């Protein structure tokens, strides 16, 4: 099970590493300085969580790679993040929509993992779940205000949802690995995650008059390392310093 569990940890870590990096791109560019700080805080939380998941992935893998090695010295096809998190920041509405959609599934996964039978998984998940409660509160409040704000903010939210919706199914569609880890109480049951996601979004849609994209299109592949071009660019920036100065220390 160790190899499967290591792979599962990579999914959890890579999701948060890529999302955290995307959020950090707002640093110095957010609409106001308070929001700049808020997004940077969420980014730091995500990167901290990634470091914990990837550290455990390296441990389980047993080939001597630590979190840094996994973060900075793997190529795009080795990343196991979902496609949603690599989508560019776009405008502020797009960043908020991506965050809400990710957390609508991700928060539930962490809640389930907090009760995992694998103690190390439960430990990381419990700590992360506390942080994510704030991420959810922050992004939801913005979703409600933009969705229920001006015609312009409403239109931008709807455009963001239309664009990102095809990537949401990947968040809660189980594959063989999920199917092997959920029944033994180690991994999350994504059918429950799907229910949670749908309930969250139904409420947010009802309160704002926004709606899911009409197209039934679902795009996936990230868990198998099949990413879009966006991840190449993100990684070449994120990994450039570590690769130019391998083993460098502060």
């Amino acid at each position: 099970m160790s190899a499967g569990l290591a792979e599962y940890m990579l999914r959890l870590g890579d999701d948060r590493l890529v999302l955290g990096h995307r959020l950090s791109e707002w640093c110095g560019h957010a609409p106001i300085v308070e929001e700049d700080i808020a997004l940077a805080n969420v980014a730091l939380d995500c990167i901290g969580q990634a470091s914990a998941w990837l550290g455990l992935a390296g441990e389980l893998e047993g080939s001597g790679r630590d979190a840094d090695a996994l973060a900075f010295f793997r190529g795009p096809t080795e990343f196991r993040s979902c496609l949603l998190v690599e989508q560019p920041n776009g405008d502020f509405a797009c960043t908020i929509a991506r965050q809400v959609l990710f957390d609508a599934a991700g928060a539930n996964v962490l809640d389930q993992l907090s009760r995992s039978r694998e103690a190390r998984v439960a430990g990381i998940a419990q700590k992360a779940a506390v942080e994510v409660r704030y991420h959810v509160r922050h992004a939801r409040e913005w979703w409600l205000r933009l969705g229920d704000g001006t015609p312009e903010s409403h239109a931008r939210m709807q455009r963001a949802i239309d664009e990102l919706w095809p990537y949401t199914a990947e968040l809660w569609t189980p594959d063989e690995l999920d199917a092997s880890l959920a029944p033994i109480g180690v991994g999350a049951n994504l059918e429950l995650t799907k229910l949670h996601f749908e309930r969250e979004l139904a409420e947010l849609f009802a309160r704002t008059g926004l709606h899911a994209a009409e197209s039934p299109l679902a795009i996936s592949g990230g868990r198998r390392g099949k990413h879009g071009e966006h991840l190449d660019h993100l990684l070449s920036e994120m990994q450039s310093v570590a690769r130019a100065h391998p083993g460098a220390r502060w």
Partner: protein
Amino acid sequence: MGTRGRRGVHKKASGVKQARPRRAAANRADTQWPLWEVFVQERTGAPHEHAGSVHAPDAELALQNARDTYARRGPVTSLWVVESRHISATTPEDSPSFLDPGPDKIYRHPRFYRGAKE
């Protein structure tokens, strides 16, 4: 952040963010949100002390911004925000007369009630 908030930011959150020129300075008039004063309580029962100020469109987001700006380092048990316009304040011109402690009026100071043995 308001001018008074800057000092707090440097003190409490300088590792996160330095004050910098606002990107939206050109259209500040359309984008500026109301100013909120932030009060932080560092342990249960302690007074809420003024920490600085934040801009926010409403109370919930003011609390969130206050949390991010003033409550991420060190222990905080409670936060208050109040829109700055609800605070009535004296003006510098008031000071000489309104705030004069009257040190020459010795009968205002209860120093005559000291114990006899002191």
